[in-house]
């Protein structure tokens, strides 16, 4: 009569789905990553350390992580405002704007890169007036920053949007009836309720920025130590057949990204326990 020891589950299929999950994750993610790590073992530790702490590598990492962090912050703020307008107000063209938000998702990154660099080039629509003000965007770190903002914004908008839609208007009415000004209502009631979603959106935009390659290299100028991102440096090393060097940089990026995403995740989990979705 059935299995004597096993407890019956109301959701059968645990064994099957768990097995598939593990197999799939191994094939798609874990095995390639393990290969990456193994490759670095061709280097001695000193060699590894030398590559990783070389000026060019450190600068590339700094540019990749620093600018994508800054871009994610900008996306967090601007994305929240965009979401607010899209969710809370009814205006002509709202659906169009809503659809436009997804373009950075869908557009091939190279196309985005070409478009942005021609826009911000010295004779471009935006580049020309900016050049008159003495600001140069294309082929500088500022260009990288802009490309990263471009590709990151949908992550913030799309993660926060459903949460804001679900947020009960009664909460705001309750705050108002308790004497709260609009300012207090927004900063003490609405934004804190959105924190888990905001953190997720931020983490996704940040991660996307770190890994971004296509759109950035067209606008970056790619000067070593100035506007060379880490993924580009990896490609350069690969094209020089210095595979171990490339993987060493990749491993550092991988570990750093993982730690950051893990930290944001923990933070988000912590916020989630305090602010459950419902």
């Amino acid at each position, binding site marked *: 009569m059935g299995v004597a020891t096993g407890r019956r589950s109301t959701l059968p299929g645990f064994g099957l789905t768990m097995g598939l999950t593990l197999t799939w994750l191994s094939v798609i993610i874990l095995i390639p990553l393990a290969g990456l790590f193994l490759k670095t073992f061709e280097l001695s530790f000193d060699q590894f350390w030398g590559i990783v702490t070389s000026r060019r590598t450190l600068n590339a990492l700094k540019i990749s992580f620093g600018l994508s962090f800054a871009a994610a912050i900008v996306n967090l703020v601007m994305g929240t405002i965009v979401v607010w307008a899209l969710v809370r107000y009814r205006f002509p063209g709202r659906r169009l704007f809503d659809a436009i938000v997804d373009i950075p998702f869908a557009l091939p990154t190279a196309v985005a890169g070409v478009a942005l660099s021609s826009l911000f080039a010295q004779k471009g629509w935006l580049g020309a007036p900016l050049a008159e003000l003495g600001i140069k965007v294309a082929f500088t770190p500022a260009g990288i920053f802009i490309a990263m903002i471009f590709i990151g914004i949908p992550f913030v908008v799309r993660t926060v949007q459903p949460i804001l839609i679900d947020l*009960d208007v*009664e*909460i705001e*009415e*309750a*705050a*108002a*009836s*308790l*004497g*709260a*000004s609009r300012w*207090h209502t927004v900063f*003490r*009631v609405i934004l*804190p*309720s959105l*924190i888990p979603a905001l953190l997720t959106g931020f983490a996704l935009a940040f991660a996307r920025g770190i890994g971004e390659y296509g759109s950035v290299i067209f606008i970056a100028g790619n000067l070593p130590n100035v506007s060379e991102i880490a993924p580009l440096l990896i490609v350069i090393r690969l094209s020089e057949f210095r595979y171990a060097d490339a993987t060493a940089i990749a491993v550092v990026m991988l570990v750093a990204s993982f730690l950051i995403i893990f930290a944001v995740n923990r933070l988000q989990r912590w916020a989630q326990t*305090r*602010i*459950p979705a*419902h």
Partner: protein
Amino acid sequence: MTIELKNIVKKFGAFTALDGVDLKVANGELLALLGPSGSGKTTLLRIIAGLDWPDAGEVSFDGESTLGHGASERRVGFVFQHYALFRHMTVFENVAFGLRVQPRAVRKDEAGIRMRVKELLDLVQLDWLADRYPNQLSGGQRQRIALARALAIEPGILLLDEPFGALDAKVRKELRQWLRSLHSEISVTSIFVTHDQEEALEVANRVVVMDKGQIEQIGTPAEVYDNPATAFVHGFIGESIVLPVEVNQGCVRLGGKSLGIAVADGISGASKLFVRRHDMQVGPIGAGLLEGTIRHVRTFGPTQRAEVALCGGEGKTLIEIDAPRDRTLQAGDIVGLRPQRYRIFAAQD
């Protein structure tokens, strides 16, 4: 604080939610707004709170017009049906919210806020939940916290929108009694909205019965139950037997047969006879004005409920009556029925 509403009109597109409502609420009253959904009772409450604005009419508190003030300036405590607690705040912070957002000049210091919140949590008997988050509480506890939060700002008026609507029957009963005793303790002018007549009759000092954006009757629970002003009120409050009758020169006919009962002046033509279930007396054939066959008898509590098919002119009409248990009724019996107390209202088309 007294509330006065004059000729309030509110439309949502083509739908008229409130159609000329006048209402005076005395200081310290506990008033129920009772009506079916769509009767405009919640809209009226929201207009008093400043969460909605009327298209026409006047709202004044203590004789002063309040329409120039938004919800945040009216000092009105509002309790929502679904609590509307702030999920990211502890119970303590929820209750403290109204105190923390006060203008700096009048805001209490931290110790003062702590003391006040403690008082309020004691008042709703939930001081032991101060550090919990709303999602860790039961529905009844949440609603009590929502009430404590609304009371924190020492409102002149307390408004409750279907406060027990989302709770199960047992908790509802408890909270009703609790709300009544709380009101006698703090005696702030309070209005609550409900579609549950039992709740309105049991809790309120006065009941306002609303339908289709208008007030049908205002009165004490006894008045609206015993002397319904309109056919709607009679049908809505208490269980009634409704029979279509014809009134002609003071003569009441049911299915062509004269009932020989009196009718108020001014009623003529197609009308409705309203009788409470327990006011329909059952006796032997001939003793009544109506006759019918008992279909089922169900016995529970102090009464038995019988389903009776009336022998009328056109087809059969099924009615339900409540009779004392000492009277033996059996399915199949043919009985005479006599309305002890009744009301006749002209039928509305």
